[in-house]
């Protein structure tokens, strides 16, 4: 406990840990919530692009132990397509109908007594395909002569919008120096250790679907699922498992399977369980987008960045699946990054290809966006002969400019970017590092230093995805705004406190932090407080934005927790004030008691006071409702709708990150060794330093993976060739570079506790910081991650390129 009895800010060990450490925590595959469960397995397309000529399920259906077989046609006949924010004629069903559009797309479902038999039956399904030319290369997909995935759209470019803020053309005319970079950003995925899983049950009279799963939200997708199932919201009950084995966003992508399993449960008349296996996960769950992007940056000779042009070509995979195209709009309204540049244009093209549909993945759009901006800053520095740190310092939004309205509409809450930069330079011992680089180069070694900075958005505005629509389309669709969070705190007749956060964590320690907050408000300890984090859409207080994504817990959810706790505290204090015959403002809650301020011996046990609201309603102060059951619903007022010039405040808080990487490349093998990595964060007030540090290191691991190892590779025919964990290379303990973490924390005025959302962290910056260091080491700017052995050796062997 910290000074003054506050739990917030203390490194409180997690409430979650004991159950997890002893094997008692329950995940979705541990659950058998209803009797009579049958097990589903999915037949998946072996082709990237093919017409389905026929499917013969007769042998499978008559196999011993099989209870039913369904095909895409069965599902399509019983559901409506799942919509997205992009209004194009694409009928997206959770199972292929008539045509397969990526290798791994579900083609048929078998329900059997166990998974082994279900897979046996998959072997017995006969599908006749007519292969079609695959569309894998994103740029080629945009050409008029490309084969089409969705004929009704008439193009593989399913979305194209351009945006202008300020006067970018004028800025580029006035520039002393313009740098342009083109690159390919790889497709990779966070691959949580627990895969997707769900149990779906349909019950008639009244018709109701109940689904237990490790879905994580956003619960705006609940509305889309209801649309596909053609039921009102109260007839689709989603219940999340008590524990989720990691997500990093990707478990959002389970929702089409929930529609599929719900429908299959209804059509077959039995509850169904499906646990995605690792092979399914690696070819057919979801991933971040691969992109073919370019950026142009206009500089004055002194290093002032006066204009930016982004050209984004985003491979969304075979379907545009909600909440896409959000990945390209999440960072949009912060397109200036940490810099004061006011003239920006953005050209977004979303392209369908015969790859797995994309979705939420750690950093969601951030790694790609900051790759553009921060590669451009560094290339600009080199072109102008400036130091890579100083060019950034020169362009930072100054600390007295906050709150700062970004050109594309974001409202940056607080920051001191220069202090963050200085901290990073200090921790890296930058001068010595540069001197070391000079020495290394004299010895003929390939040594490079790279930096990157980011603003880290948190607490998404549900409306930012509507930037995909024109202002006119938005007006027709009706207003959208906000990002609700909810929390319920109840005290039962024994006086025990239960908090429901509806925040579906997957390892982020929400229960611990919620308990810290409530403990402070009620004068209790975190051990006194039980926290339920799961969602049950029939019994929880929830809304569209509920769930776990976009770092929203420590920016938005804590506001709801704090508000509910305040109301509970007020009520308990009022009851105690009556008992102790003092004014309510004279009562404080501390040390498990309600007591008179300054007279601590005049106290009542908290539990007894709270319990009295149940046991003796007639004895409560006049007008007070009995019991304690407080639900707070908050939506940050900053999150308004997009305006008619496409400006929107897309997030509540904007943290700051400054990373510095030093690498050495072995010219003999192409191995990139990260010699030093420093990361400085502004997360506002730290709620639990243990958890904050864990998130930072974890995000770093994802960023390192994206930079050095991980890629979902497809061959020219569209076959996924990284479909096992021996081919998709997750970082292991032996590959992790040492990370030095620093903090420069400026409290957020937008949140209840001054904290900012965090968690994407270095997953957004490690790819570009390491890329900048590799570019510096190799003396060339034409480099694409991941920096795997052969690729880097090729680059090193070719010698200096564009740089």
């Amino acid at each position: 406990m910290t000074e003054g009895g506050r739990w917030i800010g203390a490194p409180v060990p997690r409430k979650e840990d004991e159950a997890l450490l002893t094997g008692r925590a329950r995940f979705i595959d541990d659950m058998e919530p209803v009797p009579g469960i049958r097990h589903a397995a999915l037949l998946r397309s072996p082709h990237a692009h093919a017409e389905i000529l026929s499917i013969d399920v007769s042998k499978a259906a008559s196999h011993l132990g099989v209870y039913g077989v369904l095909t895409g046609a069965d599902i399509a006949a019983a559901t409506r397509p799942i919509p997205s924010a992009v209004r194009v004629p694409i009928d997206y069903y959770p199972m292929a109908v008539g045509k397969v559009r990526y290798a791994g797309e579900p083609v048929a479902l078998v329900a059997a007594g166990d998974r082994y038999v279900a897979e046996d039956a998959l072997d017995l399904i006969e599908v006749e395909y007519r292969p079609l030319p695959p569309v894998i290369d994103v740029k080629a997909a945009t050409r008029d002569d490309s084969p089409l995935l969705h004929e009704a759209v008439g193009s593989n470019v399913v979305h194209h919008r351009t945006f202008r803020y300020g006067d970018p053309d004028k800025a580029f005319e006035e520039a002393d120096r313009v740098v342009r970079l083109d690159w390919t950003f790889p497709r990779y995925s966070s691959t949580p250790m627990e895969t997707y899983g769900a149990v779906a049950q349909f019950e008639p009279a009244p018709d109701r679907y109940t689904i237990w799963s490790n879905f994580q939200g956003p619960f705006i997708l609940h509305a889309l699922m209801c649309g596909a199932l053609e039921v009102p919201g109260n007839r689709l009950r989603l219940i999340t498992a008590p524990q989720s084995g990691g997500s990093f966003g990707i478990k959002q992508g389970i929702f089409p399977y929930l529609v599929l399993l719900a429908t299959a449960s209804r059509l077959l008349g039995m509850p169904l369980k499906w646990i995605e296996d690792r092979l399914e996960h690696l070819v057919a769950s979801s991933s971040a987008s691969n992109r073919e992007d370019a950026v142009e940056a206009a500089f004055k000779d002194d290093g002032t960045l006066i204009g930016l042009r982004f050209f984004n070509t985003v491979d969304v995979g075979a379907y545009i699946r909600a909440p896409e195209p959000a990945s390209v709009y999440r960072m949009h309204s912060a397109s200036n990054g940490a810099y004061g540049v006011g003239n920006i244009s953005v050209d977004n093209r979303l392209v369908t290809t015969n790859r797995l549909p994309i979705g939420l993945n750690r950093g969601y759009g951030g790694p790609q966006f900051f790759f553009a901006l921060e590669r451009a800053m560094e290339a600009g520095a080199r072109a102008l002969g400036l130091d890579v740190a100083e060019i950034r310092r020169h362009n930072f939004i100054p600390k007295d400019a906050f709150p700062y309205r970004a050109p594309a509409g974001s409202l940056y809450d607080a920051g001191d970017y220069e202090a963050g930069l200085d901290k990073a330079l200090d921790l890296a011992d930058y001068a010595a590092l540069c001197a070391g680089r000079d020495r290394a180069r004299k010895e003929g070694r390939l040594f490079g230093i790279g930096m990157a900075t980011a603003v880290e958005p948190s607490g998404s505005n549900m409306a930012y995805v509507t930037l995909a629509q024109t202002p006119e389309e938005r007006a027709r669709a009706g207003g959208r705004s906000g990002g609700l969070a909810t929390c319920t705190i109840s005290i039962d007749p024994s006086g025990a406190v239960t908090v429901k956060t509806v925040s579906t964590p997957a390892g982020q320690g929400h229960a611990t932090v919620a308990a810290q907050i409530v403990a402070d408000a009620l004068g209790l300890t975190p051990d006194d407080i039980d926290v339920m984090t799961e969602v049950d859409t029939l019994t929880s207080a929830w809304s569209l934005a509920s769930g776990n994504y976009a770092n929203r817990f420590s920016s938005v959810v804590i506001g709801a927790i704090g508000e509910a706790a305040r109301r509970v505290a007020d009520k308990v204090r009022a009851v105690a004030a009556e008992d102790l015959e003092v004014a309510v403002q004279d009562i404080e809650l501390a040390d498990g008691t309600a007591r008179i301020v300054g007279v601590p011996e005049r106290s009542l046990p908290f539990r007894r006071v709270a319990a009295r609201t149940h046991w003796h309603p007639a004895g409560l102060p006049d007008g007070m409702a009995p019991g304690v059951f407080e639900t707070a619903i908050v939506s940050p007022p900053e999150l308004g709708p997009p305006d008619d010039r496409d400006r929107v405040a897309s997030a509540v808080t904007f943290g700051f990150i400054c990373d510095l990487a030093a690498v050495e490349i072995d010219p003999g093998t192409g191995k990139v060794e990260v010699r030093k990595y420093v990361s400085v964060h502004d997360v506002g007030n730290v709620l639990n330093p243990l958890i904050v540090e864990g998130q930072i290191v974890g995000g770093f691991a994802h960023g390192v993976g994206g930079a050095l190892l991980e890629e979902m590779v497809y061959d020219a025919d569209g076959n996924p060739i990284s479909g096992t964990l021996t081919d998709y290379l997750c970082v292991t303990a032996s590959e992790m570079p040492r990370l030095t973490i620093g903090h420069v924390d400026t409290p957020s005025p937008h949140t209840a506790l001054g904290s900012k959302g965090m968690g994407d962290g270095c997953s957004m910056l490690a790819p570009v910081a390491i890329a900048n260091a590799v570019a510096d080491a190799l003396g060339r700017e034409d480099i694409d991650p991941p920096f795997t052995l052969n690729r880097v050796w090729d680059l090193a062997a070719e010698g200096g390129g564009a740089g």
Partner: protein
Amino acid sequence: MLRIEPGARHRVTVTVNGRLYSGFAEARTLLSDFLRHELKLFGTHVGCEHGVCGACTVNIDGRAVRSCLLFAVQADGAEIGTVEGLATDGVLSPLQEAFRRRHALQCGFCTPGILISATQFLETNPDPTEDEVREMLSGHICRCTGYEGIVRAILDVAGDAS
């Protein structure tokens, strides 16, 4: 010689965490599935079923091994240790305690396998270097922690023991 026809159910008896269990398995039933779905010991997790991620690691006759790469019938008669057996009378083992102190777990899905490996590793190598710890850990994938807390926790216990 023992022969089990395809599809036949065979009785498998094992000692798990010191307690005798008996259940049925087909020839092809993976030990991981047997532990979880037949014996209802859900503490052991399944992450990849091809021997890479290490989540399903259990101790068999003194050694940490992948339970997804063993058939249940092969374990007949074996002494098996799983995560459920690491704490004694509700008291966490020093390693479990160190994991909590060092925030060595987030989602906790990979944790049971890592605890089993690290426990046996420390039995055979009580005073490892950090590189040795990382080498042992490279047989597990954790996507949450970046491994830092796990390495510290194992080194804490090694340091205390030596």
